[in-house]
C-alpha cells in the first residue's frame, strides 16, 4: 500500500493529484476456480489542507484499480496537504505532502 501525493500551487489554487495503490475489486469478478472474488474497494477519501477538510469523496467499485484522483482547492505554497482513504474492509492509509 502506498500513496503518491502531489500538490502544486498556481494563482492561489492548489492542484492536488494522487495515485493510490489498491486492487479495487468490484465483487463481480471470478477467480480461476470460478469463485467470486469479494468486493474490496476504497469507499472514503478525505483530502485536508492544513488540517481542514477540503474535499471528501465517497467511491464505489467502478473506480479503476490503483485509483487516480485530481482535485483543486484554495491554498498557497508550503500548505500541508493530507490524503487519507478507508476501504470497505476497514483498511486505511494516509500520506502528507507540502504544496509546491
Amino acid at each position, binding site marked *: 500500500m502506498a500513496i503518491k501525493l502531489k500538490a502544486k500551487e498556481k494563482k492561489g489554487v492548489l492542484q492536488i493529484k494522487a495515485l493510490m495503490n489498491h486492487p479495487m475489486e468490484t465483487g463481480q*469478478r471470478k477467480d480461476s476456480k470460478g469463485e467470486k472474488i469479494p468486493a474490496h474497494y476504497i469507499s472514503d477519501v478525505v483530502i485536508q489542507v492544513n488540517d481542514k477538510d477540503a474535499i471528501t469523496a465517497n*467511491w464505489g467499485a467502478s473506480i479503476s484499480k490503483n485509483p487516480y484522483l*485530481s482535485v483543486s482547492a484554495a491554498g498557497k505554497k508550503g500548505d500541508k496537504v493530507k490524503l487519507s482513504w478507508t476501504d470497505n474492509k476497514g483498511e486505511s492509509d494516509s500520506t502528507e505532502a507540502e504544496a509546491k
Partner: protein
Amino acid sequence: MKRRTFLQGTLSASAAGLAAGAGLLTPGAVMADSHGGGDMAAAFKLDNYDAAMEAIGAKDAAESGDIKIKAPEIAENGAVVPVTVSTEMEGVTQIAMLVAANPTPLAAVFNMGEGAQAMASTRLKMGKTSDMVAVVKAGDKSFTAKQEIKVTIGGCGG
C-alpha cells in the same frame, strides 16, 4: 430524502425523461423507500441507475450545459477511462459520477468543502459502452450532464 422533494422529483422526472430520451430517466421506475436515506455506502451498492440517481438526490436534476465532462468518446480499455467533471457554477457542494450501464452505476461522489474548486478528475471502470453521467449539486439544486463513451474492451471481466 424528504418525501416532498421526492414527489416533486417524480413529476419533473417525467418531463426530463422526454428531454433526455433513450429511457435513461424512466418515469415510474421502481424506487424503494430504503434507498432514500443518506446512507452513501448503500447508494454505491445499488444495481439500478434510477435508484442510484435518487439515492444521491438527483432524481429531479435538470440537464445543464454548464457542466463540462472531459472523457474519451471511445475508450480502448474499459478498465481505465479517465474522466474529468468541472463547472463554472457558483456554490457547488457536490460532484457525482455515474456509469449508467455498470452493475453498480454510482461510481463517485465528491463533496466540496471550503475552498475546493468545482472540479474532480479520476479514472473509471466501464463494463461496456454507456453514458457517463455527471451530477453537480449547486445551492439546493442538482444539475446533470452526460456523455456516451464507447468501450471496445470491457473493464469488469478482468
